[in-house]
C-alpha cells in the first residue's frame, strides 16, 4: 500500500473511558470481524486483561476503511498499555504511530492518566483526534468535556467528535477523521530496512513474535535480521499482520505495522525499543529511543504451600518468556521457606505478575512488601547492589549507601499544589520547579527517592488531589542516602522477611509503626509473643501479644462429636495457613504489615 493510504494510530484513554469498546466497534464497522464472532474486548488476549479491563501488552490490528473519497485506506490501530509502570512501552507504541485518538468519557471528563499519555503523544509530535465518548449516558456533558479537551490540545470544541462506542454512533466519523487529520507515515521505502519493535510476545510453538513498525525499506520472509542494540540475530520465519487474527504476508514495507515470527526462544533477546535491520548491508543508524528497562522494585514471592515451589519456578520461567522486564532469583527465608526474589518495573507490574501466577498457574502466593534496589559500599570500598533487606550488611560493615531517585512530573489543578508539595516534602522530595501549563493546570517537578513511592505514594497523590493529579516519572540514577536496616524480632527470633531498609531519620517511627501493625495481625495464641524492632542490637520499639489462656470446647457428648470434629478440622486448616516460627504461628498476612506502616501518619515516609 502506498504510504499516502496508510494511517497508524493508537487510542489514548483512561481506564473505563471506552478504549476497548471503541476498538471493538472499529473492528465491527470495518467488517474486520463478523458480528457473530464479536466478543467484548477483542484485542486484549489474556483472560486477566479482559477481566480487569486493562491492557497489558500492546497489540496492533489492521483494518481497511473506505473513506469519503471512495478510496480504501489501511488503518493500523496500535493498542497501548495504560499505566505509569509501562510508560516506556507506551512511549514506544506511540513512537510507532503518527496519530492518536484521545478518548474522554463524556460523564467523567479528563483524568490524570489520560493527561500524562496525551502529553506523551504531543511530545512525540503525534496528530491528535479528540473524541468524547459515552454521549448516550444520562450524566453526559459532551459540550463541557469537549471544551476541556479542546483547551488541552489547542483547537476548537466543535472539532471534538462526539460518539457512543457502545451504540456505534459516530464511529465512522472517527475513522474518517483519522484519514483526514492524521499524517500518513514518512519513511524511505528504498533505504535499508529499519523497524521499531514496540512489543513482543512469546508463543510456545513459534517462539518470540515481534510487533514492529516498518520505518524504512521492507522485510521479506527469510531475511537475516539483526536487532541493533542487543545484537540478536535471527531469520524471518514468517511475517504479516493481525486482522485481528494472524495474516501472513509476503513482505512488510515502510509505513506498515505487523508481526515477525523470529523463532527466538526468549523475549529478553528482543527488547522493546530496539531497531531491526538486515544483517548484510543494513542500516547504520538505529531509530532513536532505545532504553534498557531494568527492574527497580523487588519483592519476595513464596508459595503458601511449600510443595508448590517447583510449580512456582516453572510458572516464573514461563512468564519470563513473555515478559522481558521480569527478573527472579531463588530466595530462602527461615519464616517463609523457599521462594523467589522477583524484580518488577513497578507496583502494577508486580500485581499483574502475582495475579497471573495465582490465576493462570493456580498458585497460592505470599508476596512480601516491595523494596527498591540499593547500592551499598563495603569497608573495602567495593559497591554491591542489594535487592533484599536481608542482604543488607550490618551497619558497622557499611561505608556508604545509595538509593535510586526518580524525577517526578506531577500535573495538577492549581488548588491542589499545596497538598502535593506537602506530600513530596514528607517523602524526602527535592523541589525542582513549578510551571503553569494553563491558567488551571500546574506542573510540579520533584526529585524523589524511588523507595518513597513504591508503597502508597499513588494512593496519597490521588487522595490529596481528589484524583486529579497525573503522575509520571523517570529514573535519574542513584544518590547517597543515610540508610539503615530495621529488623523485626518475634519472640527473640529475627524474621528476615520482615526487615526493611529505611532512611535513618524515619527508622524509629517506622519501627514503631511496624511492631504496632504486627500486633494487630498476630492473634493471641498459646505463647506470649514479644514483637521488637531493632537496628543492629539496639531495640527501638516493642509490643507484646499476650498468651491466650483458654481455647477449649465447653461441652462434648455423644450428640455433638461430629460437629466438634469439624470445628477442629477447620481450626487445623487455619493453622496450615500460618507460618511457624519457633513456637509462634504467624498468619501470612502479618508479613504484609510493612505495607500498612505508611498509611496512618502522613510522614510515614
Amino acid at each position, binding site marked *: 500500500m502506498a504510504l499516502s493510504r496508510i494511517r497508524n494510530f493508537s487510542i489514548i484513554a483512561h481506564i473505563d473511558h471506552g478504549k476497548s469498546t471503541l476498538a471493538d466497534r472499529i473492528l465491527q464497522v470495518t467488517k474486520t470481524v463478523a458480528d457473530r464472532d464479536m466478543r467484548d474486548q477483542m484485542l486484549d488476549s489474556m483472560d486477566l486483561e479482559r477481566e480487569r479491563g486493562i491492557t497489558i501488552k500492546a497489540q496492533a490490528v489492521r483494518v481497511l476503511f473506505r473513506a469519503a473519497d471512495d478510496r480504501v485506506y489501511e488503518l493500523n490501530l496500535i493498542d497501548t498499555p495504560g499505566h505509569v509502570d509501562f510508560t516506556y512501552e507506551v512511549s514506544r507504541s506511540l513512537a510507532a504511530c503518527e496519530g492518536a485518538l484521545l478518548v474522554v468519557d463524556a460523564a467523567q471528563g479528563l483524568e490524570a492518566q489520560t493527561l500524562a499519555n496525551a502529553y506523551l503523544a504531543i511530545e512525540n509530535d503525534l496528530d491528535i483526534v479528540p473524541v468524547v465518548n459515552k454521549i448516550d449516558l444520562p450524566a453526559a456533558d459532551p459540550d463541557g468535556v469537549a471544551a476541556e479537551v479542546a483547551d488541552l490540545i489547542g483547537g476548537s470544541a466543535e472539532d471534538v467528535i462526539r460518539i457512543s462506542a457502545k451504540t456505534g454512533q459516530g464511529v465512522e466519523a472517527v475513522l474518517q477523521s483519522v484519514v483526514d487529520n492524521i499524517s500518513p507515515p514518512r519513511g524511505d521505502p528504498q533505504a535499508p530496512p529499519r523497524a521499531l519493535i514496540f512489543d513482543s510476545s512469546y508463543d510456545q510453538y513459534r517462539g518470540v513474535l515481534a510487533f514492529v513498525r516498518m520505518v524504512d525499506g521492507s522485510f521479506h520472509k527469510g531475511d537475516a535480521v539483526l536487532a541493533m542494540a542487543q545484537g540478536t540475530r535471527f531469520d524471518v520465519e514468517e511475517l504479516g499482520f493481525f486482522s485481528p487474527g494472524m495474516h501472513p504476508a509476503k513482505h512488510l514495507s515502510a509505513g506498515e505495522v505487523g508481526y515477525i515470527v523470529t523463532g527466538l526462544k526468549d523475549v529478553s533477546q528482543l527488547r522493546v525499543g530496539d531497531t531491526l535491520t538486515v544483517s548484510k548491508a543494513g542500516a547504520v543508524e538505529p531509530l532513536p529511543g532505545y532504553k534498557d528497562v531494568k527492574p527497580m522494585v523487588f519483592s519476595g514471592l513464596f508459595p503458601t504451600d511449600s510443595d508448590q515451589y517447583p510449580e512456582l519456578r516453572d510458572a516464573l520461567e514461563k512468564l519470563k518468556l513473555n515478559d522481558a522486564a521480569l527478573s527472579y532469583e531463588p530466595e530462602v527465608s527461615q519464616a517463609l521457606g523457599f521462594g523467589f526474589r522477583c524484580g518488577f518495573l513497578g507496583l502494577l507490574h508486580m500485581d499483574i505478575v502475582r495475579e497471573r501466577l495465582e490465576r493462570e498457574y493456580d498458585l497460592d502466593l505470599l508476596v512480601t512488601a516491595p523494596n527498591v534496589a540499593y547500592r551499598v559500599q563495603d569497608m573495602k570500598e567495593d559497591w554491591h547492589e542489594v535487592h533484599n533487606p536481608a542482604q543488607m550488611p550490618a551497619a558497622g560493615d557499611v561505608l556508604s549507601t545509595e538509593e535510586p531517585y526518580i524525577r517526578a512530573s506531577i500535573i495538577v489543578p492549581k488548588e491542589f499544589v499545596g497538598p502535593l508539595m506537602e506530600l513530596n516534602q514528607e517523602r524526602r522530595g527535592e523541589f525542582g520547579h513549578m510551571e503553569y501549563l494553563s491558567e488551571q493546570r500546574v506542573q510540579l517537578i520533584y526529585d524523589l527517592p524511588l523507595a518513597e513511592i513504591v508503597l502508597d505514594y499513588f494512593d496519597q497523590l490521588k487522595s490529596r488531589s481528589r484524583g486529579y493529579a497525573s503522575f509520571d516519572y523517570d529514573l535519574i540514577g542513584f544518590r547517597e542516602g543515610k540508610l539503615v536496616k530495621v529488623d523485626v524480632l518475634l519472640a527473640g527470633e529475627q524474621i528476615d522477611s520482615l526487615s526493611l531498609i529505611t532512611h535513618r531519620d524515619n527508622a524509629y517511627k517506622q519501627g514503631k509503626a511496624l511492631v504496632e501493625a504486627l500486633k494487630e495481625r498476630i492473634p493471641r*495464641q*498459646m*505463647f506470649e509473643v514479644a514483637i521488637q524492632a531493632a537496628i543492629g542490637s539496639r531495640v527501638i520499639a516493642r509490643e507484646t501479644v499476650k498468651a*491466650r*489462656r*483458654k*481455647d*477449649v*470446647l*465447653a*461441652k*462434648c*457428648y*455423644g*450428640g455433638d*462429636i*461430629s460437629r*466438634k*470434629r469439624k*470445628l*477442629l*478440622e477447620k*481450626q*487445623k486448616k487455619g*493453622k496450615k495457613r500460618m507460618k511457624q516460627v519457633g*513456637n509462634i504461628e504467624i498468619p501470612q498476612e502479618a508479613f504484609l504489615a510493612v505495607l500498612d506502616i505508611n498509611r496512618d501518619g502522613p510522614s510515614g515516609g
Partner: protein
Amino acid sequence: MAVEHLYLHVPFCAHRCGYCDFVTVTGNEQLQERYVDALIAELRHHHVPAPETIFIGGGTPSLLPDRLLARLLAALPDCGELTVECNPETITPAKAQVLLEGCARRISLGAQSFQPHLLATLERLARPAAIRAAVDLLRDAGVESLNLDLIFGVPGQSGDDLRADLCDVLALAPDHISYYELEAKPGTRFSHAHGEELERQAEALEDHYDAVVATLRAAGYRWYETANFCRPGHEARHNMGYWEGRDYLGVGVGAVSTLGLERRRNRPGLVAYIESLEAGRLPPSQLELLTLDERGSERVMLGLRLDRPLTIAGLEPLLDVGELRRLESAGLLTISGDSLSLSERARFMANDVVSSILR
C-alpha cells in the same frame, strides 16, 4: 445388640431456653404418652440386653408425668449406672420416689446458676430456692450420686456473680459438677440477643474458667474432664464412654448413635418419629459414615479432654511427630511410652493443642 452405653432422649420442655440447641419440644403434653411408648418400641427394636450405663437426657425427662416416667423406667434393661436429667422445678416428693423406684440412682440436675438475674437471662424457670429444695428432696429419697449442671459466661455475669455461684454450689456438696462455658451457638435466639456482650466479655471468661477450676479443685473435686468435676468414685461412667471413644446407642427423636464406623442420627421431627414406630418401623434417620482416621481423630480429641493419659498405640499415623516434640519441649504435653498427657495449661488450650498435633 451388645452395646455398653445407651442414651434415651426425651425432648419435652416447659420452656425452650434461649441458648439451647438440643432437640426440644414445648406444649405437646398430649404427645408425651405416645412418645414414651414409641421410645420403648424403638428400644425393644434394638434388643439391648444389659448395658453398662443408661442416660436419659433431654429436653427435660423429669417433666414427664409420674406414670409415664415410671413406665419408661420400668421398660429399661438392668444396668450399672442409670442417670436421669432433671430440672429443679419438676422435682416433687412423688417424682423423687418414681425415680428411685425406677433405679435411677444418679440424677443430673440443671441448676445453671444461683443468681436470680442470671437465671432470668438464661430464661430458666427455677429460682435459687427451688434448686436447693430439689437437692434436699433427691437426697432424702436416696439418690446415690448427684450432679449439678452450672454455666459460666452468662451475659452480664461479674466475677462476684461467679464466686457467689461457686459458694452456693459447694454449699450443696454435690457428688459431681458439670461447669460449662455458655456456648451461644450461631442461630440461637440467645446469640442474637447477647452476641455483642458475649464477645466483649471474652477475655473475662479466661479468668472465670481459671476460677472455676481452681475453686472446685481446692474443695476436693477432681477436674477429670474439661468441663466436669467429681468426688472420688463419682465419675459419670456413661459420659466416660463418649470420652473414651466407645460405641453408644442413642434412642429417641434426634438421638445419635455411634457404632463402629456408622454414626446415625434420628431425624428431629417428633410426629414422624412417633408415627414410624407406631407403624412398626424404625424412625427416619440420617447416616454418616466415618473413616478410620476420623474415628481416630475423635479418639484424640475426646481422650485429651480427660485428666488421664491417652493411649496412642494405633493412633500414631494420625499424629504429627514434629508438633508433638515442639509442644513437649514447650512443656504443654508429655509422652511416656505410648501414653500422651496434657499439662494443666494445655488442658485449658485443648483445641489449639489437638488441632496442632493431629496431622
